[in-house]
Structures are given as structure tokens and as C-alpha cells.
């Protein structure tokens, strides 16, 4: 396999020569950092021939906040709180990823109550993340209404989670050694109510978008990502599963209490945008199943096994831990030098790898397909730059 390396400057200069012939010319156009469909400050440099995308080069770094570097000056209890600014739609799962890494490294055992609550919250968060994605996908494809339907149902779920967590977006709930607070007395009841509310709404989603001819035309056979390419590019989560690779950490390397829940991992067939769409919609159903199974059996116990703000020291060495967020595998890599602060902290964020699948997916296709394909990747830009 040969890799061609050329800088952006070279590429652009090459194309913008003084060509005055009347033939059509290839041209470059910046999509972003301010563009309604890049959902944040992602910049894509597109090489176009008319409306056909010949090249799509992501340019990163517009929302780099050096979370990894700042973490080096914080103790393990504190650096958790930076993580919910990475992928703000999976904030609790990000918290959990760090907590899981620290707990495994420092040998902290947490009780099953904590694990159950974490699992329930992770699944609720997966649902709300997919709700927003569903709405945004509709908006990217030109239908504004689904966005507000998605938001409407997400608000209901946010209300439930806010009661316990106290926040609606950057939810900060999981700590190394437990949780920030115990669940609210209303929590179980309200989650049950939400699931009862949301199941019929999910069928409404199908009526509005899934069964729409135009949506199917726009998504089917568009942005095909072969399983080989997906694995090669390190795609994870619904993107990988949409390509037909049934790899889900919740099933294959269970953490939390996923081994106690009975659920299925939806898998796509050919890896087009439609498969990724379908996988996510189905994941919402499966997540509700998981929550329903766990909700009645939350074991009693403490919600925090360590003291709050206690200094956790990790033995010297390198530690890696990972879990499945709404977008794929979030890996946490810690290099410790026996102190209570990490020597180096690195996050393997799912969006970063998923983003690079964009070019092989849409090469030679139209701009409109690029939008649909990018929406089916469900990118959260702050997670790419960190």
C-alpha cells in the first residue's frame, strides 16, 4: 500500500494555475469552519468538479482546547470533569471511560449499585444522543421538522436526567470510585414513564423519516464504507457496525453490568448511509430494552466507595481502558509516574477515526451525498480536536 503525501498548500496551488481555457475546471472550496452542516468548526477542503467531490480533506484544530495537556496538571478526580466537554452528547460515558481506566489502574473495586446506575445512565445518554442525531440528519437532508421532533423527545429525557445529575448537556456524574450523587427518588419512576412515552414516538420517527421515499433515495447506496476500509481506518461504533462488522464492546468485552442485560447488536449489510441510519435507530430500541431490564434491579449500596476529592495514586506504568460511547470506542491511555496526576493522558476518540472514513465514502459523489454521508457519521467536532 502506497501513501501519497502532499500538503494542502501544494494541492491548492497546483489547481489554481492560470488556466484561461473555456473547458470546465476543477476547483477548491472550503466547507467550514462556518458551515451549517459541519455542526461546529470542522473545515473540509473540497476539490470539486461541478458538484462532484473529487477530494475531501478535513482540516482540524479549530476547537482544540488541549484537554489532554491540561489533564497532566490535574489529579485523577479532577480530570474527569474535562471529559464531558469532548463528546458533549456522551458526557457521562466519557466520565465513565476515565473513571474505568483509573479504577482498573488503581485497583479500586466499585459495587454493583454504582455499576448498574452507570450502565443505565450510559444507555439513557445513548438514546438522547441518537435522538439529536436523528433530528440533525433530517435537517441536513433538508427537512427541518424532524429536528424539532428529536429535540422535543430529548427534552423529556433531559428533564429526567437533570433531576439526578443537575445538568442538561455537559453532564458530570461519574467519578473514579463511584458517582457524584445518588439517583433521585423519582428517577426509576420517571425513566419508566419516559420509555412508555418514547416507544410510540420512535414509530412516529419511522413514519416521518425512515419510511420516506426521499430519505431512502438520499441514503441508500450512498457513502458505502466497506468493512475492510472501516477496520482499516479504525472506525468504531455504529459506523463500523453499519458496515457489517458486529463489534460492540458492550457485547464483546462487557463492562459495567452489560453482561446481565439481554440485548442485540444491530448490524448493517452493505455499509451505506442507510445502514448507519438504521443501526442507530435500532440502537435506541435496544438501549430502551437494556434500561428496562436493569431498572427494577438496582442493588442497594453506596454511591461512592472512595472519599470525594481523595487523591488517587496509580502505580508507575501505562494503562489503557476503553468503552463504547454513542459514537464508538473511547479509549483512555494513561502514563503514570506514581503521582496523583497523570504523566500523560491520551484519548482515542471515536469521532477522530470516523471522520477520516468520509473521503473513501464519498469520493466521486455529489456534495449533497457528502452532507448525507457526513450526517450518518454523527460527528461531534469538539471530540475530534479535544
Amino acid at each position, binding site marked *: 500500500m502506497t501513501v501519497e503525501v502532499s500538503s494542502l498548500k501544494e494541492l491548492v496551488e497546483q489547481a489554481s494555475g492560470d488556466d484561461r481555457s473555456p473547458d470546465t475546471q476543477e*476547483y477548491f*472550496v472550503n466547507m467550514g469552519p462556518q*458551515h*451549517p*452542516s459541519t455542526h461546529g468548526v470542522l473545515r473540509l477542503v473540497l476539490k470539486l468538479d461541478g*458538484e462532484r467531490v473529487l477530494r475531501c480533506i478535513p482540516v482540524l484544530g479549530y476547537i482544540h482546547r488541549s484537554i489532554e495537556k491540561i489533564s497532566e496538571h490535574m489529579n485523577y478526580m479532577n480530570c474527569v470533569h474535562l471529559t464531558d466537554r469532548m463528546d458533549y452528547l456522551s458526557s457521562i460515558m466519557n466520565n465513565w471511560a476515565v473513571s474505568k481506566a483509573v479504577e482498573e489502574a488503581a485497583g479500586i473495586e466499585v459495587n454493583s449499585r454504582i455499576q448498574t446506575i452507570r450502565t443505565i445512565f450510559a444507555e439513557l445518554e445513548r438514546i438522547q444522543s441518537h435522538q439529536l442525531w436523528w433530528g440533525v440528519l*433530517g*435537517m*441536513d*437532508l*433538508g*427537512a*427541518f*421538522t424532524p429536528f*424539532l*421532533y428529536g429535540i*422535543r423527545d430529548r427534552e423529556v429525557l433531559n428533564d429526567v436526567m437533570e433531576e439526578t445529575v443537575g445538568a442538561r448537556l455537559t453532564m458530570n456524574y461519574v467519578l473514579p470510585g463511584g458517582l457524584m450523587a445518588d439517583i433521585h427518588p423519582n428517577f426509576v419512576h420517571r425513566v419508566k414513564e419516559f420509555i412508555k412515552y418514547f416507544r410510540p414516538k420512535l414509530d412516529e420517527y419511522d413514519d*416521518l*423519516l425512515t419510511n*420516506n421515499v*426521499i*430519505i431512502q*433515495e*438520499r441514503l441508500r447506496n450512498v457513502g458505502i464504507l466497506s468493512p475492510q476500509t472501516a477496520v482499516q481506518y479504525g472506525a468504531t461504533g455504529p459506523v463500523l457496525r453499519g458496515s457489517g462488522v458486529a463489534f460492540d464492546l458492550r457485547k464483546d468485552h462487557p463492562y459495567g453490568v452489560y453482561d446481565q442485560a439481554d440485548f442485540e447488536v444491530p448490524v448493517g449489510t452493505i455499509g451505506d448511509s442507510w445502514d448507519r441510519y438504521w443501526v442507530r435507530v435500532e440502537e435506541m430500541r435496544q438501549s430502551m430494552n437494556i434500561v428496562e431490564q436493569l431498572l427494577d434491579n438496582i442493588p442497594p449500596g453506596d454511591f461512592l466507595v472512595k472519599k470525594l476529592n481523595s487523591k488517587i495514586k496509580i502505580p508507575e506504568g501505562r494503562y489503557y481502558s476503553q468503552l463504547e460511547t454513542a459514537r464508538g470506542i473511547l479509549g483512555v491511555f494513561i502514563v503514570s509516574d506514581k503521582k496523583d496526576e497523570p504523566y500523560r493522558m491520551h484519548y482515542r476518540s471515536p469521532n477522530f477515526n470516523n471522520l477520516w472514513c468520509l473521503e473513501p465514502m464519498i469520493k466521486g459523489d*455529489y*456534495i*449533497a*451525498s457528502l*452532507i448525507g454521508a457526513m450526517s450518518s457519521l454523527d460527528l461531534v467536532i469538539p471530540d475530534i480536536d479535544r
Partner: protein
Amino acid sequence: MADALLNQLSLTLSVHTSDVFVAPAMSLADRASRALESGVWGAVLYIVIGLVAVLTAVSVLGLVMSYIERKVAGHFQCRLGPMRVGPHGVLQSLADGIKLLFKEGIEPGHGDKVIFIGAPIFSITATILLLAIVPLAPGIQVVDMNVGVVYIAAVSGLGVMGILMGGWSSNNKWSLLGAMRAGAQMISYEVSLTIALLVVVLFSGTLKVSEIIESQQQGWWIWRGHGVAIVAFCLYVIASTAELNRTPFDLPEGESELTGGYHTEYSGLRFSFFFLAEFANLFVFSALAVTFFFGGWLPFHVGNYEGFNSVMDLLPPVISPMFWFGSKCATLIFILMWFRWTFPRLRMDQLMRLEWKVLLPIGFANLILAATVVLTGLYFFPSAT
């Protein structure tokens, strides 16, 4: 000279408004020709009054339609829409209009200034010209020429020029893409639109818009022409949605793809011209659909069933045309808004495939079928026409 002017004015306006509704024979068009005969000043006055009336209509339509659109959208999307400015937000569009007035009109650096400024004017001129031929009530029609349908086809094609000019002169690649999409889309769908209208021309045997309405005294063409007219109407609705650049055919704007398409670089009043033209066009195309397929301002009549017809004629003659025209038009506009807030957008190649491979063959087949139907008199109440 002032005296002469006043004299002409009184002559021009000599017909009382009440006469207009009672005697359709004395239409605005008749008055126009009378004004033209009465000298240069009369003609100038008539043109000025006509233009002012249509311009006012366009801006009022723009305000009302954008308010309705936002309200309809709000209720489709589980929210209320504008609620703050005035009771139920009725003054919202006015506030927006004033805001747009005060905004800076930005011109892109290396754009073509003359064309850039001319584009929105071109766009709104097309709308005004189109609005001039819409018969709102018996006699309330600015121009009623004998080749009305040809005029409609010609003038509605003018709107795309404004969009092409605006997109091209903006010196912006997204705008250019939007303009090119608009050009391809609107010119393609124009064909289907005209073919759909030709079916009604075949039925009514005239190109004059007021005569097309009068040919529907026995019943609207949508049901008198049974299957053929219904197919033509469906074609018309699809094609006019594309002409209006509304979802699912809003590719020239395509805000999630082209950041605003052809009007990306427009701001302030120039943008509002495009905006006004779009909303006034929504009314015009619905009004034309009503005129051609739903009998314009005529009430619902069934052939010679006098009893039924007299029940339909119960409304006083002043209100009747307003009621019938208004309610038909409002229903159609609501359906177009329903489309917009339900459907996603098509892709460019799918859009062209739909036109050239689906709509156009159906349209031609339908036209031939319509000709056969008219020749054999297989539609309802053929003797009436």
C-alpha cells in the same frame, strides 16, 4: 396641467367599485383600454395606479405569507411560532421587514456590482408581472390579454434570470452552485408546468385567463376533466413546487448544503426582495392553480342542477368571489407549506431524473389523452362549453 391631470384621474376612476362586482363586463382591462384611448395622461395614470396596486399587493402578500408560513411551520413542529410581537405575533413580519430595511446592503468584493444589484429587482419584477394576470375576482385583474397562458409561461421563466444573475455575480462558489442548480431546475420544470396548463387550455379552448374561468361555470375542470385533469393538477403542483424552490425542491437554496445558495451574499433590502418574490410567487402559483383547475372565483357548480347551484350562489355577489377564491387559494398554499415542513430535499440528479424521465413522459401522455378526451367529448357536461 393640474386640471387636466385631475380630469383624467376622475375619468380613469369613473367606475364605482360596486359596479365592478355587479357587472363583470366592465373589467379593469376594459378600463385600461378606455384609459389608453383617453390620452397619454390617462394611460400613464392607469399604469402608475396599476403598478402601485400590484407592488402593494406584493409587499402585503410577502408580509402575510411569511407570517402564515412561520405559524404553520411552528404548529407542524410542536411549537407556537412567532408569539411576541403583537397578539400571536401578527406584527412579527412587519418588525422583520423594518429590521431588513435598516441592515447594511453588503456587496461582495470582486462581484459584478451592476448585475448583483439588478438581480433582486429582476426577480421581483417577474413576480409583479405574473401577479398582474391573476384574476382575483370578476374584473379585478390588471391585464387580461388574449394570450394569457403564453404570457404566464414566458414571464414565470423570467424569475430564474434573477436567481442566475444573483448567484453568478456574487463571486462566491456556493452562490454559483446554487444559481446553476436553480437554472437547471427551473428551466426543466417549466416544461412540465406548461404542459399541465395546456391540458386546461385544451378543455376550455382559450388562452385568455378570464375566459378559462368562465368556461368553468358548469363545474371546475379538476372534476369535469376527471382523471386527465387530476393528473395534470398533480403535475402542476409538483412542477410549481420546483418553480418556487420550496422543499422538497429547494436545492438552489439548500441551506444545509450551499449555506444559502444563490442569496448567500445578499443582505438587507436586496435579500428581502428575493424573499418577497418567493412568498408572492407562492401566492401567484396557488392562484393560477385555482384559476386553471378550481374555477378561480367561481362557486362550486354542478352542470345544470339548478337547485344545488343556487345553494352555492347564496353568498352575496360582493363576498362570493372573495370567499371562493380566498378559500381555494388558502387550501393550496397550506398544502404547499405542508410539503415544505414534511419532506426532505432531493438530490440534484434525482431531481432531474424525476423531471425528464417521470414527469415529462407522463405530462405528454396526459396531454395526448386530454386531446382525445376533448375531441370525443368524454368529460362531464361537454355541451356547456
